[in-house]
C-alpha cells in the first residue's frame, strides 16, 4: 500500500568516492594558475552517487507523480490535454537541439534557416488563428507574455505623451493579470462580475476613462463563460484610446471558432503549453508568444525575422521597440513543439478540438449540476465551475473533494479559483478525454456527495493510497526546511 520508508534524498544516498559520470579526458596541461584569492576554499559539497544510483532514485521519484499520460487531470484553465509523441520525436532531432544561439550575434542566418523557418511558420499560423498581424516568440511563459504586452501598451501611451495610471481587470481574472500590471508600474482597478458571470458592463463603463491604459480579459473567462458584450467593451475602451489585452489561457475553447483580433483585441498572448499541447513538464517550461495588431507593431522586442526572396534574415527592432525580455527568440524548443502540433492538427483539427473540448465540459456540467451548487447552470465553454458551498456546511470542503478524487487515479480539478465563487471547483477535461473517463470522474464526484451526506468526517482521511496525506502547510512555513543541511 503506502510507502512507509523515510524519505531518502540524493544527499542521504551519497557515498564518498562514488562517481556518476566519466568526463572527456584532459588531454592537455597548463602551468597557469589562477590567483588564489579567486578560488573556492572548499569544493561544493554536491552528493556522490553512481549513474545507476541516480537512475534508481529518479525513476522511483517519477513513480510518485500523477501525470497526463497516467491520470485524468481536469485542472481548470490549465488545458491538460494529451501531449502527442510525434512532437517529442521531432523536437529531439539533432538538427534542432544543438544549435548555438550566438549565431544570431554573428549574423549568421544562413546556418539556421531551419530554425528561422519554424519560427516564421509558427508566427504565421498564430496570426491566422488569432486575427493578429504580427507575433513574437520571445516570452518564455504566459505571464512573461502578459508583461511584454503591457510594456508595449505602456510605451504606446508614453509615445503619445500620455502616460496613464490604471489597468482594468475583472475580479475573475487570473492572479497573473494584476500582478503583471504591478510589475509594469500600474495600479489595478478590479470590476466585479455580474449575475451571469461576465464583467459587469455598467460598473466597467463607470470606471473607464482616459487614465486607463488597458483592459485585460480572458475569453472565455475563468468561469468558462463567453461574454457576448466583448465587442461593446472593446469599442468603449478604444473610444478612450485604451488597449484591449487578451489573456489566451482559455484559447482552447474558441480556437478556429472566434478570432480575438476580429472582436477587437489589440494584443494577445497564447499559452502554447495549454492550447498547443507542449508538455507541462511539472510546472514548466512554457512559452507565451505575443501577437499584436498594427497599432502596437512598432513596439515589439528588438529581435525578429523576415523573409527576403527565399531566405530568412534577422531583423533588429525599430527605434520604438520596448527592448528585450529574453536574450534571443525565447523558448525555441517549445515553440518548435507548438508548430509541430499545429501542422498535425490543421484547420480542421483546430475547430474540432474546441468543439470537443466544449462538448466534454458541458457534459460534465450537465451530469453534476444537480448534485453540486452550480452558480452558472446554462451552457459553459471548455471548462465549468461548480461549488461545494452546500457541502461545506456539512463540513466537506472543495479541498476535501479534491483529496478524495486522488485515490481513484484522477488528479483533482482546480479548487478555490476563481476567487469570486465560494468553495469553487473548476473543471476542464479537454478534448482528448473519452466518455468513459469522464463518466468515471462524474460517478466519483457524485459518490463524494453521497459520502458527504452519510459520513462527512471520512473525507479528512483522504487520500489513503498515495503514501502521504494532508500536508501540514502551517508547519512548512513555521519550521521552514527548504534545503538539505
Amino acid at each position, binding site marked *: 500500500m503506502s510507502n512507509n520508508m523515510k524519505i531518502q534524498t540524493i544527499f542521504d544516498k551519497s557515498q564518498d568516492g562514488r*562517481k556518476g559520470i566519466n568526463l572527456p579526458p584532459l588531454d592537455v596541461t597548463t602551468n597557469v594558475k589562477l590567483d588564489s584569492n579567486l578560488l573556492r576554499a572548499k569544493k561544493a559539497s554536491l552528493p556522490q552517487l553512481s549513474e545507476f544510483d541516480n537512475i534508481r532514485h529518479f525513476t522511483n521519484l517519477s513513480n*510518485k507523480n500523477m501525470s497526463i499520460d497516467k491520470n485524468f487531470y481536469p485542472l481548470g484553465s490549465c488545458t491538460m490535454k494529451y501531449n502527442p509523441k510525434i512532437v517529442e520525436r521531432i523536437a529531439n532531432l539533432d538538427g534542432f537541439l*544543438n544549435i548555438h544561439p550566438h549565431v544570431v550575434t554573428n549574423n549568421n542566418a544562413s546556418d539556421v534557416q531551419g530554425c528561422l*523557418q519554424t519560427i516564421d511558420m509558427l508566427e504565421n499560423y498564430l496570426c491566422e488563428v488569432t486575427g493578429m498581424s504580427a507575433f513574437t516568440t520571445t516570452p518564455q511563459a504566459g505571464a512573461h507574455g502578459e508583461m511584454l504586452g503591457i510594456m508595449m501598451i505602456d510605451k504606446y501611451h508614453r509615445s503619445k505623451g500620455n502616460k496613464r495610471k490604471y489597468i482594468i481587470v475583472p475580479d475573475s481574472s487570473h492572479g497573473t493579470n494584476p500582478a503583471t500590471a504591478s510589475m509594469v508600474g500600474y495600479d489595478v482597478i478590479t470590476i466585479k462580475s455580474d449575475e451571469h458571470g461576465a464583467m459587469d458592463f455598467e460598473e466597467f463603463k463607470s470606471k473607464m476613462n482616459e487614465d486607463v491604459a488597458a483592459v485585460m480579459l480572458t475569453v472565455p473567462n475563468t468561469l468558462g463563460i463567453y461574454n457576448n458584450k466583448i465587442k461593446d467593451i472593446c469599442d468603449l475602451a478604444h473610444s478612450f484610446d485604451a488597449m484591449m489585452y487578451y489573456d489566451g489561457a482559455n484559447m482552447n475553447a474558441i480556437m478556429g471558432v472566434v*478570432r480575438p483580433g476580429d472582436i477587437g483585441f489589440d494584443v494577445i498572448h497564447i499559452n502554447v503549453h495549454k492550447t498547443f499541447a507542449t508538455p507541462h513538464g*511539472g510546472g514548466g517550461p512554457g512559452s507565451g508568444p505575443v501577437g499584436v495588431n498594427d497599432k502596437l507593431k512598432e513596439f515589439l522586442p528588438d529581435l525578429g525575422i523576415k523573409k527576403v526572396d527565399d531566405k530568412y534574415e534577422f531583423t533588429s527592432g525599430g527605434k520604438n521597440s520596448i527592448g528585450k525580455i529574453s536574450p534571443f527568440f525565447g523558448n525555441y524548443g517549445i515553440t518548435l513543439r507548438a508548430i509541430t502540433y499545429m501542422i498535425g492538427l490543421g484547420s480542421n483539427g483546430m475547430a474540432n478540438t474546441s468543439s470537443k473540448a466544449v462538448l466534454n465540459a458541458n457534459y460534465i456540467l450537465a451530469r453534476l449540476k444537480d448534485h453540486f451548487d452550480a452558480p452558472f447552470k446554462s451552457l459553459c465553454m471548455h471548462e465549468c465551475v461548480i461549488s461545494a458551498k452546500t457541502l461545506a456546511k456539512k463540513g466537506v470542503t472543495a479541498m476535501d473533494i479534491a483529496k478524495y478524487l486522488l485515490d481513484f487515479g484522477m488528479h483533482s480539478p482546480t479548487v478555490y479559483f476563481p476567487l469570486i465563487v465560494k468553495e469553487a471547483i473548476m473543471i476542464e477535461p479537454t478534448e482528448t478525454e473519452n466518455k468513459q473517463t469522464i463518466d468515471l470522474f462524474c460517478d466519483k464526484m457524485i459518490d463524494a456527495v453521497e459520502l458527504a451526506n452519510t459520513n462527512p468526517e471520512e473525507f479528512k482521511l483522504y487520500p489513503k493510497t498515495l503514501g502521504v496525506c494532508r500536508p501540514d502547510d502551517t508547519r512548512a512555513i513555521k519550521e521552514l526546511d527548504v534545503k538539505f543541511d
Partner: protein
Amino acid sequence: MPYTPHTKTEIKEMLDVIGLEKESDLFGGINSKVNGINLPEGLDEFSTFEKFKNIASKNVTDKIIFMGGGYYDHIVPSAVDALAGRSEFYTSYTPYQAEASQGTLQALYEYQSLICKLSGMDVSNASMYDGASALAESALMAVRITRKNKILIDAGINPTYIKVVQTYLSFRDIEFEVIDLKDYESDMDAVKEKIDSTVAAYLFQNPNFFGTIGDFNEIIETLHENKALAVISAYPISLGILNDPASMGADIFCADGQCLGNYMNFGGPSFGMIATKEQYIRNLPGRIIGRTLDKDGKELFVLTMQAREQHIRRQRATSNICSNQNLLALRSTMFLSLIGQEGLYEMSNTCFTKSEYLKEQLNTIDGLEICNAKNTFNEFVIKTKLSSADFLEKLSEKGFYAGINLSNLYENKDGQILISVSEKRTKEQMDNLVKAIGEIV
C-alpha cells in the same frame, strides 16, 4: 491529426444529456464566430515528421563550437535524457496537490539544496525563466528589500542580459547606471565612487562576459556599509573551482542553468537560478518547495510560502511569475547529482586547463593578440587585423564556429572575438583551430 476519441454514438449520447440537438449548438450563444480559418488541413504523423526532418536538415550542425557567451557546448549525459524523458516527469503539472506530486516536489527540494551548495547561499527558489530574467528579478528584489531606487550595472555583464534588465527597470521608473570596465575588468575604483546611500544594488557577473574573473570582496563591503546589496550573476560550471558567491558576501545570486545538462536549443528553453540570504526569503520571487509532515507524521514535500505569489497576492505579488522552468531545473538536478562533488571540480578544472592551452597556442600566432590573458575562466578575447566578421566567416568555411563577433555587440571592439572552450573540445580540435587561424591572419 485530431486526438479526440469521440465516436458518433458517444457524441449523440452526450448531447442528449446536455439537452442539445447538434454539436454546433454548443457555440449557439456566440455572436462573433469566424467562417473557418485559412490554414491547411492537418497532416498525418509520417508526413509531419518528413516535413520537419527536412526543415531540420537546413540547420548546420557539424561545425566545431568554440562559442560561449552564456550558452555552452557542455556534455549532456544520456542518463539525464532517459530520466527527464519519462512521461511521469514531463506530462505532470505544477505540484499544487502535494500527495499526487511527491516526485516533482522532492526533485525540486533536491534542486534547491544543490543550488545552495553550489552558491553557498541560504535559500533558493525552484527556478526562474532564464539567467537574464533572473538577473532582472534580482534587481527588482533588491529594490523591494532596500526600498531604494537606483541600480548600478557592471558593463562586464552579458550585454543581452543588460538589455533585459534595462527593459524591466525602465517600466518601473527605477534609475540605473552602467559602469564601464577598465580593459576587460571591473573598474573597482569607479564602482566604489558610485556607491552611495541612494543605491539599492550593484549587479555584476563573475566570470564576466569576456571570461575575466574578479575579486569583489572589497566592493561588497562598501555596498554593505551603504546598506546596498551585491547581486552576482555567476556561471555554474565555474563554481567548481571559483570562489562561491556566499563567501564573497553576495546578497543575491543568480545564474543561467543551460550549462548543467541542458541542450542549447537555439537559446531556449533554459532556466534561471536565484538564491539569497535567509533574511530575504520573503522577497524571493517564484515557487519555493519545503519539507513538512503530513497528518500522520510522515515526511513529505509541499509548495510553501505561497503567500508571496501572484495567485494569492495578485497586484501585491513579489513578481508576476507563475511557471518555473521545472523540467529544465529537473534535468540540472539530475546532472549535478550525476557529476557530483568531484566531477564538478574535475569538469571545471578541465574547462579551465583546456582554454589555457588554447590561449597559449594562439599566443604563438603572429598578428593575433590575446586581449585579456590573466585570470580568465574558459573564455577569453582575441584580436586580429581581420574584421571580426571576416575572421569568423573564413573559419566557418573551414568547419569552425570560432567564437562570438564582439564588434556586433560593442562600439569599440573591431576585430575582436570571444572564444570559449569546454571539456568537449579535444587537443586535436584545438590544434586544428590554431592551424586554421594561423593560415588566415
